[in-house]
């Protein structure tokens, strides 16, 4: 019996590692290999080109706007869903999942319909000098849309798990709703929110479809890093495409790393 369970354990490991190896590690490893095949210079040159730097800057701007907004909204929304039972709960819950259900390209097209020259809001905004499509505001809207559910989804189960007793204890000790939230609720759900932030950041960094539709992909103007990668690839500048890809991967990994470091520091 012991022998057969050992065999099954080993084969389970082999399957898991093989799956990860073939489908995740090999492609990513290939990118690293190809990027530095001819040394550091070609990828660096591509990234530090004006278009490359602009793409990096724009991507970071997307993150800087979309992530805080979706974090604040996500925590508020999770509180609404878990702590206040009302008739609209199921509706809100379903709507929040929409970005998971809808393809990003469809999101892009929907924004087009709303903000285009023939759209509902487009003409009105254009009169007031605000250009949404083919510029930064539209791309930010697209990023917010596709990355909206993560903080809510990560926070809701943690909120449910901690229950309401700590919050009630805080209120009997004299804390008002705001103090209870900052001193008791938020610290108790912080890692749930943290994972939500990491996932949101990764999604905004990597978003291609929706942003690509609304941006018009104007090089040096409305090009984020993923769009830059695709453009470099199409122009057969493989070193540039690989370099930018690596940069993108490192940005996403570093957010995860920062959170794990914070968590470990606290655990110690």
């Amino acid at each position: 019996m012991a022998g057969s369970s050992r065999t099954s354990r080993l084969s389970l490991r082999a399957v898991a590692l093989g799956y990860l190896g073939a489908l995740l590690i090999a492609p990513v490893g290939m990118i690293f290999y190809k990027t530095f095949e001819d040394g550091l210079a070609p990828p660096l040159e591509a990234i530090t080109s004006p278009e490359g730097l602009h793409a990096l800057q724009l991507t970071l701007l997307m993150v800087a706007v979309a992530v805080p907004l979706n974090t604040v909204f996500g925590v508020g929304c999770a509180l609404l869903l878990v702590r206040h039972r009302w008739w609209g709960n199921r509706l809100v819950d379903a709507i929040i999942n929409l970005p998971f259900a809808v393809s990003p390209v469809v999101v892009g097209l929907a924004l087009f319909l709303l903000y285009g020259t023939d759209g509902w809001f487009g003409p009105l905004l254009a009169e007031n000098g605000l250009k949404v499509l083919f510029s930064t505001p539209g791309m930010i809207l697209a990023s917010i849309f596709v990355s909206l559910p993560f903080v809510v989804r990560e926070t809701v189960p943690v909120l449910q798990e901690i229950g309401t007793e700590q919050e009630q204890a805080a209120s009997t000790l004299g804390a008002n709703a705001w103090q209870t939230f900052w001193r008791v609720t938020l610290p108790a759900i912080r890692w749930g929110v943290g994972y939500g932030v990491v996932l949101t950041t990764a999604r905004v960094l990597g978003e291609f479809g929706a942003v690509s539709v609304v941006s018009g992909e104007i090089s040096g103007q409305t090009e984020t890093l993923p769009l830059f990668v695709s453009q470099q690839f199409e122009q057969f500048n493989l070193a540039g495409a690989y370099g930018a890809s690596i940069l993108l991967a490192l940005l996403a990994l570093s957010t995860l790393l920062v959170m794990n470091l914070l968590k470990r520091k606290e655990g110690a």
Partner: protein
Amino acid sequence: MAISVEGAHKRFGDFQALDNVSINVPDGSLTALLGPSGSGKSTLLRAIAGLETLDAGEVKINGEDATAKPAQKRGVGFVFQHYAAFKHMTVFGNVGFGLRIRKWSKPQIEERVHELLRLVQLDGLADRYPSQLSGGQRQRMALARALAVEPQVLLLDEPFGALDAKVRKDLRAWLRRLHDEMHVTTIFVTHDQEEAMDVAEQLVVMNQGRVEQSGSADDLYDHPANEFVMSFVGEVNRLGEHFVRPHDMEVVLDSDERTEEAMVQRIVALGFEIRVELLLGDGTQVWAQLTRTELQKLELREGQIVYLKPGQTKSFSGSAKVVAAA
């Protein structure tokens, strides 16, 4: 009266948790709300704390109408069955929480927290997190946290319910001593009549959202208002419409006009106390509580025919009719 509740009603959907409940708790007393689960005792406690809003009725704390006040302004200390410890704060942080909310200075907080930790015998554990404490220590921390803000009243919701028997007994005695030192008006909820009688001066027995009776432990035991109270505060046998405590059941070997024939079914020795289970002629099963000495004198054995002489009996609703018929 430190706390008075007048005509409290509370409904959760179809469930009537409180049905016209009124109680008075004297200043500086220790009162137990006693009842089975679902009797409304916790709901009443939470309504006093402001953690539950009443459908109707009013709550007064030290003469002041608190019905519409939120929990944070009622000046009550509340202790939860499952501690409700702030898990991300140390023991020091937990106990000092209410003081930080009240913007005490650091040295003041430091002094007060250590004073309280000494009181609850947790000094030296100030830097621990709740997860590093035992259940009993966590509950003492929660008590110190509630006492830190010098509440007008202290409310404890089944405070020892999650602890094992030994720790529960220790904490019970300790709570009693603490109350004698501090004199904070205290209400605690329990479903354990022994615990209530051991700790509290005044007991309020609740059932199905209503107060059945309130009074001292002796009052309730000797003069129960109804069948429910009689059976809840102690063991009871039912003989037709009459109720009698097992220790008031005298077992004799000779019959007379006041005795009833019974057969000894089983004799259970529980240390000094002996439980004799008896079967009456009409099929009713009762039991008598004897001492070891009494048992030895009677030389009872299982299957023997004996005679029961009920001492003090009680009858409640409809009793007049039954007595008349007899």
